[in-house]
């Protein structure tokens, strides 16, 4: 079996794929929740600030993650 499958690489691909493909994607969604909280008509000023902060943090991590992925892929 191992002669045909590089199990080591396989696991890494699955873990990193999940981290990027599910983790970053979900974070982006959380950022959207933040944006929605900011623009909600009945939101108080604190909720707006918190929403914006959440959105900024999430989107920053997503962009940084994508950039890191790109860098790592190209560096090799």
């Amino acid at each position, binding site marked *: 079996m191992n002669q*045909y499958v590089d199990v080591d690489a*396989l696991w890494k691909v699955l873990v990193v794929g999940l981290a990027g493909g599910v983790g970053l994607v979900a974070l982006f969604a959380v950022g*959207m*929740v933040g944006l929605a909280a900011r623009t909600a008509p009945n939101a108080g000023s604190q909720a707006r600030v918190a929403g914006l902060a959440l959105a900024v943090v999430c989107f920053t991590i997503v962009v940084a993650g994508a950039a890191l992925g790109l860098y790592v892929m190209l560096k090799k």
Partner: protein
Amino acid sequence: MDANALLLGVVVITALGFDFTNGFHDTANAMATSIATGALRPRIAVALSAVLNFAGAFLSLKVAATIASGIVESGAVTLTVVFAGLVGGLAWNLMTWYFGMPSSSSHALIGGVVGATLIAAGSSAVKVDGLMSKVIVPAVLSPVFAAAVAIAGTFLVYRITRNVPESTRSRGFRLGQIGSASLVSLAHGTNDAQKTMGVITLALIANHTIGPGEGTPFWVVAACALTISLGTYIGGWRVIRTLGKGLTEIESPQGFAAEGSSAAVIFAASHFGFPLSTTHVCSGSIMGAGIGKRLAEVRWGVAGRMVTAWLFTIPAAALVGAGAWKGADVIGGTGGVAVIFAVAVVFAAALYLAARRVPVTHANVNAEWTGTLDPEKERVA
């Protein structure tokens, strides 16, 4: 110009032809979902993808030694074998494009080369272990991986944003889609343009134009980058239609989850040296995005035909590759190669003309899916 230089010229032209089909066949991988959800207008989408493919081809120059290394004995590779392999890959790419089936260009090329090697040098020249571990096993696993990631991503995305107003949600995810689709395009340029660079480099080495230790000449890099991006810009609308509309109905959150999954899996795989096919990953992701939202959304008939096409990719391309080698061998010499080249050109032209009878273009690519590729069908029914 002597016979060898002529032969080399034909091989290079065929390789660039393959690169071109590789480009337009795979536009769908990155852009099908963005086009289907309206995140990008069709023409803008292919233009963006073309530019990023071009850039991607230049980004990394650790040229994949050659696509065939580890799969066939390098001693068995002659210019004619490379040529016949390319013809096999080309023919399969054009056939699947005509039927609007996403299929792996790498598999088509590998199949062609394996077929040509089998008939030229016998079965001992094909490394079964390499073929299994580098091609077959990843081919089975990659769509499953990508689908699993996309299912989880899609599920979470809908769950997390269920209280977000629809307008904010679809606009936000469309922007996200543009970003993730761009990453896939860039990765495609880096990975796939290098395949052709590798083949041309191989041919140059086989012809002693450059030494085995030398790197890929710059004109090869530039030509491959240009050709793949031109192909991307032409756009394989038929394949885009199948992936964006046929396989499942895609909304922007699903599109984002699918492209995010594709990008993550492709990046991870190319970093850890696990050879995946972009096409398989992207198709798997889109399928997963369909499953992740609601089970019944995937059109399993289309998915089944797609998987069938994948199963036939290597054998079919191998058959054509073997036939092309045999044909060139029987006629003999450069003349034989020229005849096969002419046959390939006629075949391509015939398919092109046949495709124009049921055209799929940027204008009708998003028409309602009515069970077939033909966007006009609904008017009749």
